[in-house]
């Protein structure tokens, strides 16, 4: 009940954020403009449109998660709206959970809208969308949920700017985790190798959520893989939300 009240309010507040509409505009422009690249590769235009559109859903979804998510808790403290909320008989983790759920709902709608635009565009070009396309969207959303959990954690411990930088870095590194262990020989046995190996095991491998190439090429992906990737993301998401709740538990506001 309390969590839902906070979630509903977070959603209402987020849909008033101008950043959301700016990013949605760019996302729609990218999706609709993807045909331009399709012309370069003759006969491949639908495939290119799907590929670029799914990338746009992912990138702009992540940008929304970062820009809106990293200020979620911080803004409540900064604007002092949190005073009259935390003084209610509610646990602080309920507040964090509510903020997260509100954001998850917003991203679900944003992802659904971008997917609808892509689907309509692909169909209008004479192409078709299959199950793998929607599996790819589902995994993109699951990745957004993980990124949002990290953004909420950052929002409860640091400023939006620093939080956004950290989350964006984690997103970039998370998509290229192999570079952390495929080191040149002169790093072998050094502290650098040890630290980077630790980072490799701590940072989620976000490539696990990337089946965009399969979706663009119409290659089937086993449902078991999708479920595994979702479980993998859920473990990280829950851990990050627990950390956010712990960080917020004793925070003076």
């Amino acid at each position, binding site marked *: 009940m309390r969590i839902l009240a906070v979630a509903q309010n977070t959603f209402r507040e987020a849909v008033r954020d101008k950043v959301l509409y700016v990013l949605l505009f760019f996302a729609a422009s990218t999706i609709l403009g993807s045909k331009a690249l399709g012309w370069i590769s003759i006969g491949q235009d639908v495939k290119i449109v799907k590929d670029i559109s799914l990338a746009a859903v992912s990138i702009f979804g992540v940008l929304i998660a970062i820009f809106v998510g990293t200020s979620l808790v911080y803004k409540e403290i900064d604007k002092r709206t949190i005073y009259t909320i935390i003084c209610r008989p*509610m646990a602080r983790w309920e507040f964090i959970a509510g903020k997260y759920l509100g954001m998850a709902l917003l991203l679900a709608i944003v992802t659904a809208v971008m997917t609808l635009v892509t689907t309509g565009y692909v169909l209008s070009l004479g192409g078709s969308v299959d199950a793998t396309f929607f599996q790819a969207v589902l995994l993109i959303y699951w990745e957004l949920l993980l990124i949002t959990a990290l953004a909420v954690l950052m929002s409860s411990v640091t400023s939006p700017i620093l939080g956004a930088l950290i989350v964006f870095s984690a997103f970039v590194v998370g998509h290229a985790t192999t570079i952390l262990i495929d080191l040149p020989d002169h790093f072998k046995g050094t502290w650098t190798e040890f630290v980077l190996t630790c980072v490799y095991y701590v940072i989620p491998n976000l490539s696990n959520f990337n089946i965009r190439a399969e979706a663009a090429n119409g290659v089937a992906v086993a449902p078991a893989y999708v479920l595994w990737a979702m479980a993998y993301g859920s473990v990280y998401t829950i851990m990050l939300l627990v950390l956010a709740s712990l960080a917020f538990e004793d925070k003076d506001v």
Partner: protein
Amino acid sequence: MDAISTLELGKTYRSSLLRALPPSLDGLSLSVHENEVFGFLGRNGAGKTTTIKILCGLVRQTRGEAYVLGTSVRKRHARRHIGYLPENPYFYEYLTPRETLDFYGRLHGLGARERAVEWDKVSELLDLRDIASQRVREFSKGMRQRLGFAVALVGDPKVLILDEPMSGLDPLGRRSIRELILRMRDEKKTIFFSSHVLGDVEQICDRVGILVKGRLTSQGRIDELLGKQDNLVEVILTGLPAGVLSELEARALSARLSEAGHHLTFRDKQAANEAVRLALTQGGSLVEFTPLKESLEDHFVKAQEMIS
């Protein structure tokens, strides 16, 4: 059982570099009885808001303990009894008063029917019906304060904690808040409010506590606190022969001359009576006989000086 009690409560904030700052609150022990209006006085930065934030669960104390109706403020259940009005309350700008109260009702765990009843009751009390569909962003300071009071009353809490409730309000606004506080006392609630405006406190408080630099220097009924001081008496006399005047000036704590006559201040009523008797027998006249009661302001200033 006290409505609010604190025991050696202390709070030391840390700077961003984790360096400890001077304590904001230093061993605060106070008790607020049930169904009383308690004024928590102190200058800006004395630790009033820190105390209030600890009571409301916004800030964790670094030592000591605080209880609301016998429950430690560390437990969230304690907050079920509290209605809190922060200084300059902020609410979601895009909500209307009705939506705002509904939101806080949900946070308080009230069902839909209870929230509807709550709106009827509180909106009438705070005169919110005319502005029920206006967005908070269009509100004046006084309207926000009224809404803040309404939010504090959601869930019918037994203890109201108000941080500078009259700050920034015009005389009518201050009066309406004072009347609300007294009305809440009539409804058997306990009201704990901070202020640095002594006039407001003197008018409505049953008891006060004075906080100076994070330490409580005194607490009790206003008349008790002021009664602990000597009650000086000022008399104004005229027509005094020179010898008698010098005799009385020697007995008085202070003496000055004005158009009204000779103002002589004596340490108590008995000394003043003796002086008047002497003056009258020697041909003098009594113009005025005024017991000088120490004001709350005098007491407050003394408390500051004592710690300084």
